[in-house]
């Protein structure tokens, strides 16, 4: 795949709605891959929104950027997702769909990844169906990060199979989680955004 082909999607990405979608997927992926550090918190504090539900959730998240120390954020992340033995939430698709990790949904995701030319980074040890990973994959399909921008039909299929089937439940759990303070609006944003994506894909 030549560089020029990889960047050929640039003009398509200039469509406002794809830009919006990719940014939100990347924002969510960044915040769920690890607790936000200094630079990421600076970005979070600058988020703005209008008075729509989603806009208000962005306001809440931006406000949270000033309320917690990085150490508090590490603790909260740990309590939510890592914990002693297990965090309050288990952010993996297989677990949400079957009650167990590493079951058939993970195998299906791996098949889809092979077809779409998505490869796991060598240093990553956890299963590919982590919420942050599938959010990043959706962003990559939109931006063309995996070679070429995926068609709407491909995006819809991936979303229906590997994201829409469980991510809304995860984000609902995240918003309601006892340990969630900084992360509460992330759960809210995730729920609202998944609903936008679901409704949009249903229109095709």
């Amino acid at each position, binding site marked *: 795949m030549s560089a020029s082909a*990889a*960047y050929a*999607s*640039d003009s398509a*990405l200039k*469509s*406002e*709605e794809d*830009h*919006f*979608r*990719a*940014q939100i997927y*990347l*924002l969510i*992926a*960044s915040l769920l*891959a*690890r607790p936000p550090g200094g*630079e*990421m918190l*600076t*970005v979070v504090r*600058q*988020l*703005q*929104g*209008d008075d*729509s*539900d*989603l*806009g208000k959730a*962005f306001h809440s998240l931006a406000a949270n950027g000033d309320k917690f120390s990085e150490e508090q954020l590490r603790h909260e992340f740990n309590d939510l997702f890592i914990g002693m033995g297990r965090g309050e939430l288990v952010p993996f698709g297989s677990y949400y769909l079957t009650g167990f990790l590493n079951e058939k949904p993970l195998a299906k995701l791996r098949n889809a990844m092979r077809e779409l030319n*998505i*490869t796991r*980074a060598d*240093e*990553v040890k*956890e299963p590919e169906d*982590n919420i*942050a*990973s599938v959010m*990043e*994959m959706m*962003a*990559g399909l939109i*931006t*063309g*990060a*995996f*070679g070429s921008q995926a068609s*709407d039909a491909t995006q819809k299929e991936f979303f229906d199979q590997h994201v829409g089937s469980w991510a809304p439940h995860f984000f609902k759990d995240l918003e309601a989680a006892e340990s969630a303070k900084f992360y509460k609006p992330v759960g809210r944003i995730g729920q*609202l955004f998944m*609903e*936008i994506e679901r*409704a*949009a*894909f249903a*229109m*095709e």
Partner: protein
Amino acid sequence: MARKEETATDRRTFLKMASVGTLAGGAAAVTGVSAQASEEIQVEGSGYRESEHVKRVYELSRF
């Protein structure tokens, strides 16, 4: 969202309506998010090959 769904009948229009104003004034910040996400995820895991390309695409599409 229900209000917007009623008036938008095709996917692109619907998404445009959902996105307009949602991140109003935050263009610079959100562009920062994009670069930050691909950098961090690539370096620290949960990442995927060619995320440098994501970064590049965003540099090119900055608004």
